[in-house]
């Protein structure tokens, strides 16, 4: 074995998730990992920012009341997004990779005077680069998010979207499939080749990436 990280840096779950012990996961009961997901050190995952009926502006403390939240949100008239269980704050798909110091934060919106959180859904084979801050509403499969990227609130990154390093995806932006965005504010600057995402080539390295973690 090559001289590697301190043994046991990662907690490996039954479904093969590799989670660094030095990551900061808030409200784990509101987070769903798809299996074989990697979460690196110092990543911050804010599962505690799940939807409540009334203002959750200062609810950074992880409230364990998932059931309570459900009840309350049921009373809220504006249950627009059809999420089966509103207490899920963050979903991360298979082979998705969260680099060091990434911040995953459910998006929020002021709707009719009420500030409420919406779930953050991240698909399979997604790569999120170091120090990126992701507040998207949804991130599709095979999406690449470069390092130091900011993905604004309620943004939607479709499958095979590619966000260049340092880009700032403005709130509410939609990045279509196969499109490359960059800059601040991010705009479409190019398209990916048809071979992107082929297993083993660029965009198709998620399995390899997973395998290398903690070895």
């Amino acid at each position: 074995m090559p001289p590697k990280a301190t043994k046991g840096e990662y907690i490996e779950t039954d479904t093969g998730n590799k989670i660094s012990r030095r990551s900061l996961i808030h409200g784990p009961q509101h987070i769903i990992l798809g299996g074989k997901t990697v979460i690196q050190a110092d990543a911050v995952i804010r599962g505690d920012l799940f939807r409540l009926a009334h203002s959750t502006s200062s609810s950074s403390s992880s409230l364990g009341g998932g059931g309570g939240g459900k009840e309350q949100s049921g009373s809220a008239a504006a249950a627009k997004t059809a999420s089966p269980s509103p207490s899920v704050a963050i979903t991360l798909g298979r082979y998705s990779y969260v680099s060091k110091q990434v911040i995953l934060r459910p998006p929020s919106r002021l709707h009719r005077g009420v500030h409420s959180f919406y779930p953050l859904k991240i698909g399979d084979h997604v790569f999120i680069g170091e120090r990126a801050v992701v507040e998207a509403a949804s991130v599709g499969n095979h999406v690449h998010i470069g390092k130091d990227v900011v993905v604004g609130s309620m943004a939607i990154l479709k499958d095979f979207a590619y966000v260049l390093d340092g880009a700032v995806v403005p709130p509410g932006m939609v990045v279509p499939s196969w499109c490359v965005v960059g800059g601040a504010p991010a705009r479409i600057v190019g398209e990916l080749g048809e071979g992107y995402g082929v297993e083993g080539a660029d965009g198709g390295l998620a399995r390899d990436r997973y395998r290398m973690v903690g070895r």
Partner: protein
Amino acid sequence: MARPFPYTYISCPCAETPTPDPSAKRTSRDLSSKKNAGQSAASESGEEGDEQAFDPRSPRANFSLYPPEQLLFCEDCHQIKCPRCITEEIVCWYCPNCLFETPSSMVRSEGNRCARNCFTCPVCTAPLAVTTLENTTESHAHQGPWILACGYCMWTTLDIGLKFDKPTNIRIQLSKIYENANGRKASKTVSGLKSSLSTLSSMSEQLPGPDEEGDDGSRNPKEQSQLDHNARFAALKTFYRNQIAETSASPTDPLGSDFGAIFSSPSALNRIMSIYTSSTLGGPYGAAAKKQKSKLPVMREALTASEGLKIPPPDAERFIIERVTSPDCGWDGLASMDQRAFQSPDARFVDDLRPLPVLLRTKRSKRCKSCKHILVKPEFKPQSTRFRIRLIALSYIPLSTLRPLVPSPYPGQLPSSTTSPSISAPSLDALEPSKPIQFLLTLKNHLFDPVNVTLATPSLTPGRVTSKITILCPQFELGANSDVWDEALQNATATADRSSRSGSGFEKVAEAGKVWDKGRNWTTVVLEVVPGTLPGSSPRPTLQLGGKKVHDARETSDKWENTSPLREDEDVIEIPIFVRLEWDSENQMIEQPMGKGQKPETIKRELAYWMVLGAGRIKSEDASL
């Protein structure tokens, strides 16, 4: 996209056709490659490879090197196809914001822009969101008025005094607002002028008199300057269409139908010819034509605001300058060049900026330029990521991966230990000069036939900074690819297999002529690199610049010697490798996965191309100076 090390680029063979060769040789080669495009071109490029190595630093190389996933493959030409070797056809238009399709019949009338509620911020280009002005509580049934707001720079349509009654059909509402604004401002003058439009258009003699002009001139130009750009264009268009209709000889003249036709249509030529013939020829025809012609009004230019004429007020420039210099405008009040590029030509200030409907994007199918065979055909629906046809190079040429031998196989990506920047992981962004480093080059076969691979590389990388390259085993075989399901089944065992190998391989020593590692459809060989020393680190201070410059001027080739400082990316080790693949394939169809039975007939296939591996960047000693 600048890629992190290590990376692979593949040179499309199309770049070799116009190389500056002796002309005779080139023409002969062109002919031959036209005759039997595929194989001969491949073999010839092979011959050429012996002659001169591919130089990744040459200015031309930029135009032929592509990341492998961008390359396609034409089965008919049996050749790699880069974006320069293909033609594209639009499959559908869609809005990148709402992802709705715009039917091709609508695209033109909508100006290639989304007709829905999608707008971009005129200040920063971020998408605009439709929001209520008052974030009212639920008790209020009535919402709105509505505005468009940028979530990035916080610009809103309120900044230009625009509000909407409904949150839908914003683009129609916007155009109505623009129209109304024009209508209200220009109505007084335009309506008055409109009545005289018919008379005006009939003859050019009705030029506004001097007093009339003075009368209008005080009032009119200001109103005109308010006239919307689009409205003025439309007015001009209709004006000229009417002019054509009125000045053309007969009412059935096809010229009147469309404005564009007059300049391109051959009937315009007929008309001109008929004028000539009618005037030169005598007789009843000629006379009649002459008579008719004299009656016809002469085509004229637009004269009034309603016709689309715009006379800038004499003090317009002064007004703008005054406003620019005034303290309440300032730098921030001026629209930037980038902003103005997409606005009306009159827009000078930030208040003149209007929200922009989102430009449409396209999904395109791709064809081989030489044989017209379709290479890529995406699914029709804008949101689908599937392809009906997708002949990518990666399913034909082996996928190559490079990684440094000793330490973690993924250096740039994930040195998973945070605290210890361990000695074992050499950063590929700072390779020690003259210190040999070994890389593992893995080629993975995607064909269903075993492939013989020959790799060739110049022993020294081209350019001023020469690194020494040795491929320890340049000839090897790649096993055949098998079915996806087999792969899936074997995957678990294969990885375990591999891990044990690399575990033991840590003590393994690379040997010349021997393959490092081998799997079902992949082979790994060792590549040894001795990074060159960067110029200028030591000899630069000793040089006399003046004398050397004269020398440079005389001999341009000398420039490549040690004189000039390091150019951009000259410290990057890019290894050109000539890859030659040979395999026996079943007759015609290479890619049929049903080739499991006995092989009745085989064809020798051959493919050759240049590949460039970006191994890393040489550490600069200057940094310490």
